[in-house]
């Protein structure tokens, strides 16, 4: 270690030797982002990341006071909201940010579909992104129960009931999720564990994979932009990631922060009534908005279709749909390497239309 002093002096030199920052600086200097009419959609991945960071920070803060037992969960959240200084803000931001994050993640996913960024060699990036979305939904489902209020209690009951109707593994899966035969204290403990330990761990790993892949492969530009400039014999225009794109991303983050703060301050997230497992389910039980479309679809399916149970049929349908969607990069090009442009666009528009209409129907009916 003594000999190291011989190197360039000063703090930057000291740090450089130990951390090798110049490599990162070098990498950033060469990283570029394509410029075209759809560049704005590139910000949504970053916004989702930003909201995730906010979730981690506010989540850690909430952990200072939250208690995951049936007797104390509701009271501790009430305590946070009423007694702890700025507790209302932290809790409201955590809830609002969770919802915005799912929303921006979905925007990000659909922009990837419509800008065709899933193409070779980015299939694994797509898969990791889908997995991250599933994890985000898992965060939403497990976090919804934690305040232990009436609506979340019954929504969890309904949700785990659906899992139970899966063929074969259903009952075992429901038992695993609930930590017993019914939703209760064991479920709360479990969901808390999932929410603050299991899911964050998995998400961190997958997020790293996702980000490394994006850095490794660069940001994709849509095929029509590439074709246009290839025909002209040049390359599609790019902007430097740092500072040009980064400053714009910062603006997007600040805008997200402003929206988040306003929502939290003007529409504080409600706490509702404490859950009573012996009470009958109140009218109008519905899950969070991002589960509304499948929830409403299942409600529409008759209880028996041919020899199959309606719910089972619905779940099988969703399963097939999910597999179809997950495998999108693999069927988007045919054997000859030609892109099935219309099919992908059609599928994307159809899914978007289905989610939008059924969510609205589920909300208003």
């Amino acid at each position: 270690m003594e000999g190291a002093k011989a190197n360039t002096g000063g703090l930057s030199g000291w740090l450089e030797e130990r951390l090798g920052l110049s490599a990162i600086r070098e990498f950033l200097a060469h990283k570029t982002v394509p410029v075209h009419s759809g560049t704005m959609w590139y910000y949504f991945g970053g916004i989702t990341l930003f909201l995730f960071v906010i979730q981690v920070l506010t989540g850690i803060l909430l952990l200072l006071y939250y208690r995951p037992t049936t007797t104390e969960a509701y009271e501790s959240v009430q305590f946070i909201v009423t007694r702890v200084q700025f507790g209302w803000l932290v809790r409201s931001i955590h809830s609002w940010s969770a919802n915005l994050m799912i929303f921006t993640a979905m925007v990000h996913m659909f922009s990837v579909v419509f800008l065709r960024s899933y193409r070779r060699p980015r299939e694994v990036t797509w898969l990791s992104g889908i997995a991250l979305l599933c994890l985000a939904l898992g965060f939403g489902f497990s976090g919804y129960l934690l305040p232990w209020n009436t609506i979340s209690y019954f929504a969890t009951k309904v949700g785990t009931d659906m899992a139970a109707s899966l063929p074969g593994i259903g009952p075992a899966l429901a038992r695993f999720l609930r930590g017993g035969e019914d939703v209760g204290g064991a479920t709360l403990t479990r969901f808390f564990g999932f929410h603050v330990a299991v899911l964050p761990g998995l998400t961190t790993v997958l997020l790293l994979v996702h980000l490394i892949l994006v850095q490794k492969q660069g940001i994709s530009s849509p095929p029509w932009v590439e074709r246009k400039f290839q025909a002209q014999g040049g390359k599609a225009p790019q902007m430097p990631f740092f500072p040009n794109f980064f400053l714009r991303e910062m603006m997007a983050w600040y805008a997200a922060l402003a929206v988040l703060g306003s929502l939290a301050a003007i529409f504080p997230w409600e706490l509702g009534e404490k859950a009573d497992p012996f009470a009958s389910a109140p009218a109008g039980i519905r899950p969070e908005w991002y589960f509304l479309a499948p929830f409403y679809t299942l409600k529409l399916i008759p209880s028996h279709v041919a020899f199959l149970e309606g719910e089972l049929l619905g779940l099988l349908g969703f399963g097939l749909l999910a597999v179809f969607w997950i495998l999108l990069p693999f069927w988007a090009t045919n054997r000859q390497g030609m892109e099935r442009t219309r099919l992908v666009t059609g599928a994307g528009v159809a899914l978007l239309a289905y989610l939008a209409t059924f969510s609205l129907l589920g909300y208003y009916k």
Partner: protein
Amino acid sequence: MIRRPALLLLFLLPVAAPAKDSCVECHTAMESAPALKFSKDVHQRRGFSCADCHGGDRNADDQDAAMSKAKGFRGKIARAAVPQLCAHCHSDANLMHKYMPQQRVDQYELYQTSVHGKRIASGDGAVANCVDCHSVHDIREVKDPQSPVHPLRLPETCARCHADAAHMAKYKIPTNQFEEYRKSVHWAALAQRGDLSAPSCASCHGNHGATPPQVSSVAAVCGNCHALVEDLYSKSPHQPAFAAMGAAGCVTCHGNHGVRLPSSAMLAGDKSVCAQCHTADSPEGKAAVEMAGMINGLNAALKNSDQVLRQAASSGMEVSEAMLRQQEAHATLVKARVAVHAFRVTAVSQLAQSGLAAAAETRRAGENALKERDYRRMGLGVALLAILATMAGLWLALRAIERPPQAPAGAGRR
């Protein structure tokens, strides 16, 4: 000659009852009303039959034999004879015990002490006997909502006679009790809230021993439910004064059948009941006005706090604790209203003050919540300003970076 068609019919009828009952069989075939109604009668369910009241032989197929005087056939029962007939079984503890061990057997005894019973004994057949209230041939248990003596139907049943001016003419008693009662707070509790414990006629007048409460016992009657008020009243200066005057306690101020929801308007103003005896400038009149003022003041303060709390709650603030405190304050108002019956200003003022203190506290809580809301919005405004400034800075910085290098710096733009 008559016997044959009856017998023929007998064969045509499906025999449902386990025991033979020729009375019901024939009279049902004749479609006579009593026989048709009897299937709904509680006595029928317990195995009793026509013959148990009307005499005769239910086993005889022959009409003459079945209704022969020799078998004790009595035919139509005279009105005046009804109570004794019912009492034959209902006053027999040994018999009643076989069917309803908890049922009382003193109804007839009580009936004899009632105004109805005394009149019937003196030969007035127009007064109510058992079947006038309990119905006849389709007698149901009191707890059956279709019984005419079920709490919800009792007032109408009494009113059948007592609201009939022609019927009541010779007794020279008023006929407006039913009309009044239907305006009362008691009827509202019974009919609208469905509180079957709320009083109807029999709750105050008794049922079988129906008598108007004596002047001296009115307070005791009301005190059956309004125990606290009775307690305060009986210790108050009004009790001996009313007793000396021959005034009937509670009724003096509240009325009897048409008891309305009391309000502070009974104490002060032109509807004051106190003014019946006390002039407005007497010490008592002044005390009444003072008590009314306290109650009104507390009421107004509570309404005020309610409004502030509602406003805070509707703008998303958490005020559930203050709301609970507010409930307690509302209970104090109820207690203060009860305390009026001590007819001492201090009794009311103590409660009114604690209620006012609570109302002030909840009001403050509500106002603080509203202040907190404004503070939050201001904080948000400041934060938004900082965010906007940063965004503007970012935007300008971007413009500075991306400005085409050949363009003259800052020319005509800022």
